[in-house]
């Protein structure tokens, strides 16, 4: 029996972690992630979820505790946001290098200063190179589905990497949305028990995070890099299997009204929902625009992006983070790099908007697209444009 329920997305995410039957949750509360871990704490306290809940003293410790629990083979979940993600930063590298299948939700939040509890992507964009699989969700259903998929991707013995599931702080984390909660049996069938191949065990000792002299470090890093790049095919496989079983399909790059388009807007996360409304009204006016949404951020889906813009004249990339002093929005600069060696490529225009929780309305998206086309046609001396700043 399928029934939609109205649920706050944070609560729905916690319920999905319950359906995934997590063994350990180690987390430190930070706005706007709090409702996720508060609801998990309630589920553990009431006995509905049989897990260890570690209310730990900081995010650095939270991620460190996750390393330990994942290393014994326990299914491990945590969540954070903004400053919390940055405090974890050094441990994030350790989790991926040790190949520990931790799942973490990030309720994306701006990074201080000035202090902002509201959403943008500057937290996750500072973690591009930490070696985690990174996925962006756009609405409540995607959060629930991808939380379940994340455990399956992470724990697959061909992958064994941590997964970061990004959901926009407040704009998504605190919305009440209609969500179809999968049934327990279906999730249990889809997601087998964690079968970590080398758990810490006194009968079969293994040392993790050891010293590597220069003679072996490059080999260790290349092996890690290959594991992340090769995870791509398993990620697709997991989404395909999820689609077959649950009827909801996910791809690294998703399309909205791209047929016959000459200009595409690229967004990540919850902005995509509003952008669709803008695309609809521009299409009604006869403007040949479409939307592509980047769901998979790491490993970067090069082939999907190149395929998505075949025959397109202009690609407008909207980032919710500034790469201070750099070449443009983080996603825009990576996409420009991905096309550098290509013979046929669109003009790529970088926009930054929506910083620190600032809304971009459908009208705003229309303005961005119109201005983007103008820049693509006439050129601009700026590396990127920031939308909506008061002059």
């Amino acid at each position, binding site marked *: 029996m399928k029934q939609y329920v109205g649920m706050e997305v944070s609560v729905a995410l916690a319920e999905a972690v319950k359906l995934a039957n997590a063994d350990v949750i180690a987390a430190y509360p930070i706005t706007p992630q709090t409702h996720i871990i508060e609801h998990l704490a309630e589920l553990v306290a009431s006995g509905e979820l049989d897990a260890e809940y570690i209310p730990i003293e900081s995010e650095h410790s939270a991620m460190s505790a996750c390393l330990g629990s994942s290393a014994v083979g326990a299914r491990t979940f945590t969540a954070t946001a903004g400053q919390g993600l940055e405090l974890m930063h050094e441990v994030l590298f350790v989790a991926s290098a040790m*190949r520990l299948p931790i799942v973490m939700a990030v309720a994306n939040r701006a990074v201080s200063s000035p202090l902002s509890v509201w959403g943008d992507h500057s937290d996750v964009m500072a973690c591009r190179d930490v070696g985690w699989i990174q996925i962006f969700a756009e609405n409540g259903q995607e959060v629930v589905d991808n939380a379940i998929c994340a455990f399956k991707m992470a724990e697959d013995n061909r992958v064994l990497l941590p997964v970061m599931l990004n959901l926009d702080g407040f704009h998504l984390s605190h919305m009440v949305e209609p969500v179809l909660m999968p049934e327990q049996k279906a999730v249990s069938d889809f997601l087998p028990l964690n079968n970590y*191949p*080398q758990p810490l065990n006194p009968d079969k*000792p*293994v040392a993790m995070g*050891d010293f590597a*002299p220069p003679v072996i470090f490059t*080999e*260790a890093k290349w*092996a890690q890099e290959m594991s992340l790049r090769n995870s791509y095919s398993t990620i697709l496989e997991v989404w395909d299997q999820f689609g077959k079983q649950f009827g909801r399909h996910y791809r690294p790059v998703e399309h909205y009204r791209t047929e016959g388009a000459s200009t595409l807007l690229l967004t990540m996360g919850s902005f995509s929902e509003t952008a669709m409304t803008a695309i609809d009204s521009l299409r009604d006016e006869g403007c040949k625009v479409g939307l592509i949404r980047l769901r998979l951020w790491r490993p970067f889906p090069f082939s999907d992006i190149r395929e998505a813009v075949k025959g397109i004249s202009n690609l407008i990339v909207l980032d919710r983070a500034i790469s201070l002093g750099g070449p443009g929005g983080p996603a825009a600069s990576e996409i420009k790099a991905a096309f550098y060696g290509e013979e046929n490529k669109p003009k790529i225009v970088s926009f930054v908007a929506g910083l620190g929780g600032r809304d971009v309305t459908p009208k705003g998206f229309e303005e961005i697209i119109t201005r983007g086309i103008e820049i693509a046609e006439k050129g601009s001396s700026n590396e990127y444009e920031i939308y909506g700043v008061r002059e």
Partner: protein
Amino acid sequence: MTKAENEITWKEINIGATVHEPGNASQYKTGDWRSNVPVVDFSKCIKCALCYIFCPEGCITKNDDGFFEIDMYYCKGCGICAEECPTDSIIMKEEKE
């Protein structure tokens, strides 16, 4: 480990670069770090074992005659043994090879 570290390819690295063989740090040749080498004159040695106690590398062992010998595979040439020896039986010389 069956292969020397400088022969291991990236495909042969254990998952997460874990180590499954206890104590394999003993394969690491810290003797390569040395620029000065300790030279022991047993004729002055009183077998007090201070060098053995102070060596931070743990690379000094007692031989059958009760003298203390240095394993050059591990000796880093720090000079602590020479500094501590009460009879100046150990002197530090420049490493030649």
